[in-house]
C-alpha cells in the first residue's frame, strides 16, 4: 500500500482509511477465539444440507482492527453527545447515561421473553409502572407498550380504531382524515390499515381548516389523525371543536403524540377528546435514537377501547402465592385484542430507559420538560424572526418552522443553509418538512440545551445569512469541513450498490 499524499493542510479526515472491512480482510486473521467442544461430537447431517466452508465471505480481521475501525467510524457522526442537533420533529434531546446503564443491568439484559412470569416480576413491574405513567401523562389510561416505534404505534392505533368500529358494526368506515402537514408515517400507516387517505387542509394560521374538516367528516370516517402539536410546532386551538366534529360523524380521534414533549403537564390528550394516541419514547422520553432506532411507540387509549389493545399488556393480578405483596404482575392478552404486532413484548431495553428517565424527572420535572422546550423554541423564533420568515407568525410550542424564502430569493435554498450549519458543528434542522411550507427549516432545540447553546445557534444562523450576501459560494458548496463533501444521491439510487462486492467499487 502506498503512502497517501498529505498536503500540509489536509485534515486527519482526509487521511482516514475508509475501506470496508472486507477490503481489509486477510485469510487467517480473526478477532475472537471460540472454545473447542466439551461434549462428544455428533455426526453432521447429509452434506447436501450443509454449507461449504468457503461459502461464507465475512471479514477476517484481528480484534484491534475491529475496534479501531468502528471507533474511527463513530467519529464521522454528528450526535447529541458531540453536537447541538436541532432537528425538528425528532426531539434530539440529551439521553441520560443512567438510562443506558440501567438497561444493561444483568437482571434486565439477560432475561428471556418466554420465561415464566414469576421469574421476571421486576421486568413486568417496570412495564406496569410505565403503562401507568404514560396513561397519566396522556389522560388515556389503557396502554400497551408493544409497538416498536412511532409508526408501529400508529398502525396499532389504527387497527384498534378499525376493530372498535367493527365491533359496533361499522366496518365500512374506511377513511382516514389527515391534515396536509402530517408526517409521512400517518398516511403510510393508514394505507397499511386499509384506509383511504383524505387530506384535510391547514389554514393560514397553521390550524386545521375546520370548515374543510367538517365537510370531509362523514359516515365513511374511521379516524382523524391529528398531530398535536402539529408539525408546524403549533397547538391546535380548535381541538375541542374538531374532535367534536369527528365524534359527531361517528369516527375516532387519533393523536400522533410524537410531539408529546410539548404537552407534559400542560394538557392531557384524553381530556380534550382524543381516543387513541401513541408516544415516541425515543423522542419525548429521551431514549437514544441510535442512528435510526430502536425506538418504542406505546399506544394509549380510552378505557372504552382497552379491550382492543395489542398483545401484551401487563396487569397486576391478585395471587394467593404471590408473597407479602399479595399480587403478581403478568402478561395479558386483552379480550378483543388486535393481536400480536411483533414477536415479543415490545422494545424492553427502551422501556427500561424511558421509565428510568421518567423517575428522574417525576411529575413536576416532566412539566418542566415541556415548559422549557416551549420557551427555548420561542426564544429562537423571537431572535431569528428578523432574518428568516416564519411559516406562521405566532407563538409556537416546542419547535419553530422557519422558511428560507428570503434566502432562496437571494439564491441559496434551505438545503444549503442546512449543509452550511454542519460546517459550524451544528446539525441541520429538518429540511423541507412540513411539505406545506416552502423552504422549510424546522428547528427544535429541546429543553436540554442551555441558553448559551441557543445563543450560539442564533448567531451562527445570522452569520450564514450574512454569508449568503457576502460569499454565497461558501454556502452553496457547503459542507467544507466534513469527512465527505456533498454526496451524489442520484447516482446512488439509479445504480444501487447495496453491499460490499469482491470487485469493489
Amino acid at each position: 500500500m502506498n503512502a497517501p499524499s498529505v498536503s500540509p493542510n489536509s485534515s486527519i479526515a482526509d487521511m482516514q482509511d475508509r475501506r470496508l472491512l472486507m477490503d481489509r480482510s486477510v485469510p487467517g486473521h480473526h478477532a475472537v477465539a471460540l472454545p473447542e467442544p466439551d461434549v462428544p461430537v455428533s455426526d453432521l447431517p447429509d452434506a447436501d444440507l450443509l454449507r461449504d466452508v468457503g461459502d461464507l465471505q465475512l471479514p477476517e480481521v484481528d480484534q484491534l482492527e475491529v475496534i479501531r475501525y468502528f471507533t474511527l467510524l463513530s467519529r464521522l457522526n454528528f450526535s447529541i453527545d458531540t453536537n447541538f442537533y436541532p432537528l425538528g420533529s425528532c426531539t434530539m434531546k440529551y439521553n441520560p447515561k443512567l438510562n443506558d446503564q440501567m438497561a444493561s443491568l444483568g437482571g434486565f439484559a439477560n432475561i428471556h421473553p418466554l420465561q415464566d412470569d414469576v421469574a421476571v416480576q421486576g421486568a413486568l413491574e417496570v412495564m406496569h409502572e410505565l403503562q401507568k405513567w404514560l396513561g397519566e401523562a396522556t389522560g388515556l389510561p389503557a396502554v400497551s407498550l408493544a409497538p416498536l416505534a412511532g409508526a408501529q404505534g400508529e398502525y396499532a392505533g389504527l387497527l384498534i380504531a378499525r376493530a372498535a368500529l367493527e365491533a359496533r358494526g361499522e366496518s365500512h368506515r374506511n377513511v382516514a382524515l389527515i391534515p396536509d402537514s402530517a408526517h409521512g408515517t400517518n398516511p403510510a400507516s393508514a394505507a397499511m390499515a386499509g384506509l383511504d387517505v383524505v387530506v384535510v387542509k391547514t389554514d393560514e394560521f397553521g390550524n386545521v381548516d375546520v370548515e374543510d374538516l367538517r365537510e370531509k367528516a362523514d359516515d365513511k370516517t374511521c379516524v382523524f389523525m391529528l398531530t398535536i402539536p402539529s408539525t408546524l410546532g403549533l397547538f391546535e386551538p380548535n381541538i375541542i371543536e374538531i374532535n367534536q366534529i369527528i365524534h359527531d360523524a361517528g369516527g375516532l380521534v387519533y393523536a400522533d403524540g410524537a410531539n408529546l414533549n410539548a404537552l407534559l403537564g400542560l394538557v392531557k390528550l384524553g381530556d380534550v377528546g382524543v381516543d387513541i394516541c401513541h408516544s415516541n419514547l425515543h423522542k419525548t422520553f429521551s431514549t437514544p435514537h441510535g442512528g435510526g432506532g430502536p425506538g418504542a411507540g406505546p399506544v394509549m387509549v380510552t378505557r372504552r377501547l382497552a379491550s382492543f389493545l395489542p398483545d401484551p399488556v401487563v396487569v397486576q393480578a391478585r395471587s394467593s402465592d404471590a408473597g407479602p405483596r399479595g399480587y403478581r404482575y403478568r402478561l395479558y392478552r386483552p379480550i378483543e385484542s388486535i393481536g400480536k404486532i411483533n414477536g415479543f413484548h415490545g422494545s424492553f431495553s427502551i422501556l427500561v430507559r424511558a421509565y428510568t428517565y421518567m423517575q428522574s424527572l417525576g411529575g413536576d420535572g416532566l412539566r418542566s420538560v415541556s415548559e422549557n422546550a416551549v420557551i427555548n423554541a420561542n426564544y429562537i423564533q423571537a431572535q431569528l424572526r428578523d432574518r428568516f420568515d416564519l411559516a406562521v407568525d405566532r407563538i409556537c410550542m416546542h419547535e419553530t418552522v422557519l422558511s428560507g424564502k428570503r434566502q432562496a430569493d437571494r439564491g441559496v435554498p434551505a438545503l444549503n443553509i442546512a449543509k452550511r450549519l454542519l460546517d459550524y458543528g451544528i446539525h441541520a434542522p429538518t429540511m423541507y418538512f412540513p411539505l406545506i411550507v416552502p423552504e422549510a427549516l424546522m428547528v427544535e432545540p429541546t429543553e436540554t440545551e442551555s441558553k448559551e447553546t441557543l445563543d450560539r445557534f442564533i448567531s451562527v444562523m445570522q452569520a450564514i445569512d450574512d454569508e449568503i450576501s457576502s460569499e454565497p459560494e461558501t454556502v452553496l458548496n457547503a459542507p467544507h469541513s466534513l469527512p465527505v463533501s456533498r454526496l451524489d444521491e442520484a447516482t446512488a439510487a439509479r445504480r444501487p450498490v447495496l453491499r460490499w462486492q469482491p470487485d469493489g467499487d
Partner: protein
Amino acid sequence: MSSNGISAHPFIPNTPSEREQMLATIGVENFDALITDIPEDHRNPGLDLPASASELEVAARMQALAAINQDAGSRPSFLGAGAYRHFIPSTVGAVLQRGEFVTSYTPYQPEGAQGTLQTGFEFQSAVAQIFGMEVANAGMYDGPTAFAEAGLMAARVSRRNRILILDSADRRLFEVADAYSRYQQVTVESIGLDKVLDGDIPDDAACIAFQSPNFLGEIEDARAISDAAHAAGALSVMHTYPIALGMFKAPGQCDVDIATSEGQPLGVPLTFGGAYVGLFTAKQRFIRQLPGRIIGETADTNGRTGYTLTLQTREQHIRRERATSNICTSTQLIGLMVAVYCATMGPSGLRKVAELSYHKAHYLADQINGLDGWDANPNGRVFFNEFVATGPVGPSEINRQLAERGIIGGLDIADVVPGGMLFCVTEMNSRHDIDRLVNALAEIGKGGAA
C-alpha cells in the same frame, strides 16, 4: 404566575433567571402566555406522578427491580424458540458505548452521518453474505415483522393475495403476519408440507412462506419448497435462524426469493424480547419493492467514496400512503451490534458457534433419550440446536422443579406437541450445565425430591 415545574434540573439547564430573560426576549410576561392556544379548561391539569428522584435513588430502585428477575446470565437456560442466548464478544459492547453511534438520528444529512451509514452498509453486506442473498436492507423492527413484511412484499411483487405459511412455523409468525395484512386485501393461511411438495398450491398464492429450522428446530427442505412455490408461480419466503446458516445451506443457495430472520442471535442480548432487529434479504430484482431503509454506496463531489440512504422513493416520508412500508425509526443501533458481531466472528467464528450449538444440542438429546420414559426428537428429523422432548411428567411441573434447582428449562409446548417441551442448546451451555439438566430430569422423572 409561577409554574408547577421545577426550576432547574440536571437535564434542564434553564434557571429561573434565564427563563425570565428568555421570556422577556420573546416578549411575554410569563410562561402561561405561551400556551394560550390550549383550551383554558384543560390547561395545567397537573400530573399525578411521584416527584423527581435523584440519580442515587433511581439507580437503587432499578437495581432492586433488576435483581428480582431470574437472570439467564447467571443460571443455565435451555429456552430458545425465537430468542437465543448466544455468546456476545466483548467488541460489541465496546463499540456500542460510542455516544456518536448511540445519540445520532437517522442519517438524513449523510455528510454528517458517515459513521452510521458505513456501519449500516457493513451490516447489509454481512447479512446478505450470511443469507447468501443478493441484497439486504438496513434492518426491520424484529424477525416476525420482517417475515410479515416479506409476505406483503411477495403479494406486491406477485400481484397475488394469498400468503401461505407452512404449518411448522412458529405461531408468532402467523399472528404477526395476520396483524400486518388484516386490512390489506391479503389473506394469511396455513398449509402443510405434503401439499406443497405435491404441488397442491392454489394459483393465487403469492408465496409459500416457511421457517427453517422450523418451530420445532427441524431443518426444512428449502430447495424443494422453493421449487414447488416457483412451479406454482409463487415466491418462496424463508424465515431462518442466522446462526444455523453458519453450517446449513443458506436461503440464497436454495433459490429462495425473500429470506428473513430475527437478528438477535447475532450479538444482541436477550433483554426480555427487545429491542431486536429483523433481517430482511431478497433477490436483487426486487429492490424497489423492499420495505425499510436501505443504504447505498456513492461518491462525493471530490470522488471520495461515501454512503447515503438510497431508494428513498419507496419510503413513507416521500411516497406517503403509497410507500412500501410505514417504517421510519427502525433498529439501526441493533444492526450495528450485528455488524460488529459479524466482523468479530468472521466466517470461522460463525461456523464454530453453529457447530458447537449443534453438537451440544445433540449431546443433550442423546442424554435425554438415555433416560427412562423420555423421548427426544421423536420425529427423528434433522435438527439444529432445538428439539422436542416428552417425558414422564408434564412440562409445567418439570419446569417448576427445574426452577427450584436454579435451571431455566425448555419451553412448554404441550399445546402443540402433547406433553412436549422444546429444548434449546447453544455454545453457552457447558457440558456441566447440560449434565446438571439431565440429572435433574432423571430425578424429576423418578418423582425425586426437588
